């Protein structure tokens, strides 16, 4: 029997999509083994989200609230999550592999002297009822399967690897508070400001569709045509860039996809004028569908693409935008 605890991530009072994806994984593991799913929710004034977590699969929600938890802080959140783990004693702890997950989960796992598999794209139960985690290694050039002998077993999941369940309004979770003595004056680190990058509608790591441009974009201004395509596609779509485009000053670094940029996992990745260097592939090769548009018929990106068009991106991009608008208008 696998009892699973998920760590819900909320930012400014809204739940991250990956937290709902983690709930879907947790539900699968628990249902396959007759276990239950508890979610720990940390923040200030966030208890209202417990009902949503219930509708997405949590049996029980533990709420840790404190004024000092308004913004994410390593020490406060680690204390809250650790208290929940001590109370529930789960077999498995799951969270999203996000900037918060990366900061928090290894810290908590170390506190419990436990093993952790990060950035997993698949999690199942082995014959022994223990977790079997699959994760990309060597920048996505191979996968490893990991088993963990400690209790609990920790894992973080790569955003977009799982689909969240449909919300079921008839499901409700039992909600209770966890009391933790927190002393904010002891926190070693405190977030004092949250910065929003201008423009981006949705973060690359969470995007469902990504329109990316490479060195061939030639100028920052030309990214406009990619944004137009992204707008035509609509919600959940954003624009990315290769390192060559970023280094040439056409796009900011937070748009870079690849080994030294972001690792993305959309259902559709469109690469315009990107050659397909191994370090770029490292960031996007788990995309479910890949489109390559390139002038050079021998560009390596074509070997990874499901669909390819040999041609000039400055002609193809506007044409794709029009075609998308047309198909969207038809419904």
């Amino acid at each position, binding site marked *: 029997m696998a009892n699973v605890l998920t760590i819900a991530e909320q930012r400014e009072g809204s739940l991250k999509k990956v937290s709902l994806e983690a709930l879907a994984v947790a539900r699968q593991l628990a249902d396959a083994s007759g276990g239950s799913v508890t979610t720990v929710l940390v923040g200030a004034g966030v208890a209202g989200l417990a009902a949503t977590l219930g509708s997405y699969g949590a049996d029980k929600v533990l709420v840790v609230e404190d004024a000092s938890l308004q*913004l*994410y802080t*390593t020490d406060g959140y680690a204390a809250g999550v650790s208290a929940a783990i001590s109370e529930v004693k789960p077999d498995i702890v799951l969270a999203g592999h*996000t*900037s*918060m997950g*990366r*900061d928090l989960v*290894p*810290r908590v*796992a*170390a506190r419990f*002297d*436990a*093993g*952790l598999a990060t*950035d997993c794209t698949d999690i199942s139960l082995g014959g022994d009822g223990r977790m079997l985690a699959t*994760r*990309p*290694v*060597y*920048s996505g*050039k*191979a*996968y*490893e399967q990991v*088993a963990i*002998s400690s209790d609990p077993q920790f894992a973080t999941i790569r955003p977009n690897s799982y689909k969240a369940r449909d919300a079921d309004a008839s499901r409700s979770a039992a909600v209770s508070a966890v009391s933790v003595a927190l002393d904010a004056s002891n926190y*070693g*680190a405190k*977030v*004092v400001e*949250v*910065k929003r*990058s201008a423009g981006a509608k949705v*973060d690359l*790591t969470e995007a469902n569709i990504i329109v990316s441009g490479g060195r061939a974009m030639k100028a920052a201004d030309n990214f406009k045509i990619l944004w137009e395509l992204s707008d035509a*596609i609509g919600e959940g779509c954003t624009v990315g860039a290769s390192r060559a485009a970023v280094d040439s000053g056409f796009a900011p*670094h*937070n748009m870079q996809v690849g*080994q*030294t940029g972001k690792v993305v996992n959309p259902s*559709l990745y469109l690469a315009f004028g990107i050659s397909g260097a*191994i370090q770029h592939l490292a960031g996007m090769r788990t995309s479910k*569908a890949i*489109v*390559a548009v390139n002038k050079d018929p021998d560009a390596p990106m074509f070997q990874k693409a*499901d*669909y*390819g*068009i040999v041609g*000039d991106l400055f*002609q193809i991009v506007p*044409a*794709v935008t*029009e*075609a*998308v608008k*047309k*198909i969207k208008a038809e419904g």
Partner: protein
Amino acid sequence: MKIAVIIKQTPDTETVVKINDAGNDIVGTGVKYVMSPYCEFAVEEALRTKEKLGGEVVVVSLGPDRVLETIRTALAMGCDRAIHLKDPAYEGGDGQATAKALAAALKTVSPDIVFAGKQAIDGDQSQVAVRVAELAGLAQATIVTALEIAADGKTAKATRRSEGGGEVVELKLPALISCEKGLNEPRYASLPGIMKAKKKEVKELKPAELGLEGQVGAAGAKAKRVKLLPLAERKAGRRIEAETPEAAAAELVRLLREEAKVL
């Protein structure tokens, strides 16, 4: 300031990954090993901190003989001395076993600040640095793109990357900083630097000297690789041929909607 930097040696990014017959590791022959790119940012930031605030920079790395070359690179860049955790017993560790050894080695340095990479590009685990912070009792800021340390060396302000933007974190030292691209441009080792590096101290510490016998390497690992698997080959893609860009675009959009079902 006592400054420490923990670095990992990894295969070069261009490495072609070949899986061994046992299916549990890559074939090591012909692999070129380098300092993991994010660790280069860590070394650079450690050196800049020393240049501003004075003190010494100690490099710590866990790994086999070949790691010495990467340690020498860090010394040639300007680090002052090194600790090499080298012993067969350290091999095969998971994040926790490795972090235990590194945290214990750092205790012998009592650093005010520790720099690490945000992740090492072999296992892409992004967990060792944070575990070290926890086990060594350090505050932390991870995925850092900008850092300012107060002149008195007691506090720091770090900007970390997060989805949709960034977060500014105020830290009390001692603290660990995990470094992200954008923090700095790593320097190259100069020729005199390379000459000097040969004379700098590289101290080896065994598990027993850290009081960690039986707790490091494979013996201490809680997470174990069951299997290493090749990528599922993507099936050959389709070239869309059409008379005009408009026709090609229309066909692409049709396929994305009807065949791939992603639009």
